[in-house]
């Protein structure tokens, strides 16, 4: 029962943390709960479909289907997280001021919210399909079904509770600092997901590792430990990354961070004045 609970908790944790960061990053935006809800619902439907066709997907492209699908899901999430951060670095300050001025949620249009919905869908789909497969495995192996089910539900509840805890914690940050914090969290999250995608493409033999294990910090922080798992999800900690993973990590940081900086950079007064007049 305990083992089942731990496995379930681990699978749910990643999706729960990503959803809570996304919810916090959209604080004060009217309709965010609805869009995140759509994302979770779509993700669950997608997870069931992926699990139902797991055999077909896995055997596609000479047995590389699973990695290719997961890498595509991860890279799509990275692109959407990056888009969100770039959008926020353009509109964030005005949004925070507006929220303060009118004292209630601000309508921003559907575009930024649909981007967050895609992120939530991808997170739930990826982790959810493993949850469904694992649950099916328990059911099919027929071992102590009731005890296993109790463990699984316990793990699920604990995973969701961790997400809620992170969300509540983030909301305690004053609004003027919150978007800076969620911006950094999303930047590091996106870089970590990009490194995960590189790992999957290497596992599929599509990309070379260049070099496996450019360092090994398992003695310092084991990735299987709770803290190791948390840091893997939040900032992409890996105890033994390949050179290719490091390249993806740094490239995601540089591209998203660079675009954020380029957009947020104070513009020369003359250009701003011309734009205001024109």
């Amino acid at each position, binding site marked *: 029962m305990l083992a089942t609970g731990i496995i379930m908790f681990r699978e749910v944790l990643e999706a729960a943390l990503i959803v809570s960061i996304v919810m916090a990053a959209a604080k004060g935006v009217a309709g965010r709960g609805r869009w995140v809800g759509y994302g979770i619902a779509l993700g669950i439907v997608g997870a069931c479909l992926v699990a139902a066709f797991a055999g077909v997907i896995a055997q596609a492209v000479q047995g590389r289907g699973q990695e290719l699908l997961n890498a595509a899901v991860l890279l799509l999430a990275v692109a959407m997280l990056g888009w969100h951060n770039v959008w926020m670095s353009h509109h964030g300050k005005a949004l925070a001021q507006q929220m303060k001025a009118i004292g209630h949620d601000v309508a921003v249009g559907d575009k930024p919210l649909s981007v967050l919905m895609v992120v939530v869908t991808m997170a739930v789909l990826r982790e959810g399909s493993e949850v469904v497969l694992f649950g099916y495995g328990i059911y099919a192996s027929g071992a102590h079904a009731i005890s296993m089910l109790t463990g699984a539900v316990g793990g699920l509840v604990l995973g969701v509770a961790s997400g809620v805890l992170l969300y509540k914690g983030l909301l305690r940050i004053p609004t003027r600092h919150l978007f800076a914090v969620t911006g950094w969290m999303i930047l590091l999250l996106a870089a970590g997901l990009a490194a995960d995608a590189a790992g999957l493409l290497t*596992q599929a*033999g599509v990309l070379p590792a260049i070099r*496996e294990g450019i360092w090994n910090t*398992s003695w310092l922080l084991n990735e299987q430990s709770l803290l190791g798992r948390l840091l893997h999800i939040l900032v992409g900690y890996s105890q033994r990354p390949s050179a290719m993973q490091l390249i993806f990590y740094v490239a995601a940081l540089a591209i998203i961070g660079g675009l954020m900086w380029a957009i947020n950079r104070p513009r020369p007064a003359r250009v701003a004045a011309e734009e205001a007049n024109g």
Partner: protein
Amino acid sequence: MSHIRLGIIAMLFSLLLVAQAWAAPAPVVRLVIKNQSFEPQTLTLPAGEQIEIMVKNADTFPAEFESADLNREKVIPGGTTLPLYVGPLRPGSYQFFNDFHPSSTGTIVVVPPKQ
């Protein structure tokens, strides 16, 4: 200007070398999951080259090959055989397990290549 061009040529050439090394067919080893345990429980692999591990799940329900040491994670649905690539690895011992049944474990022992 000319050393920029030289640099680009050198870069393309090294990319070609990487692509070559990677395109060479990797040696294949086999691993079977049966009654929720790995057979064999110890795989011996040569260091310094990419290896394809063919994992066959002989059970009827899904398993997940996972290894933090190797940075690998792959669901193997019941009754399927799927490849996964590891390496080039340095000599040493690497643990793996079935994430859906964590008491099933195995070890990959990487040995220096024979001269």
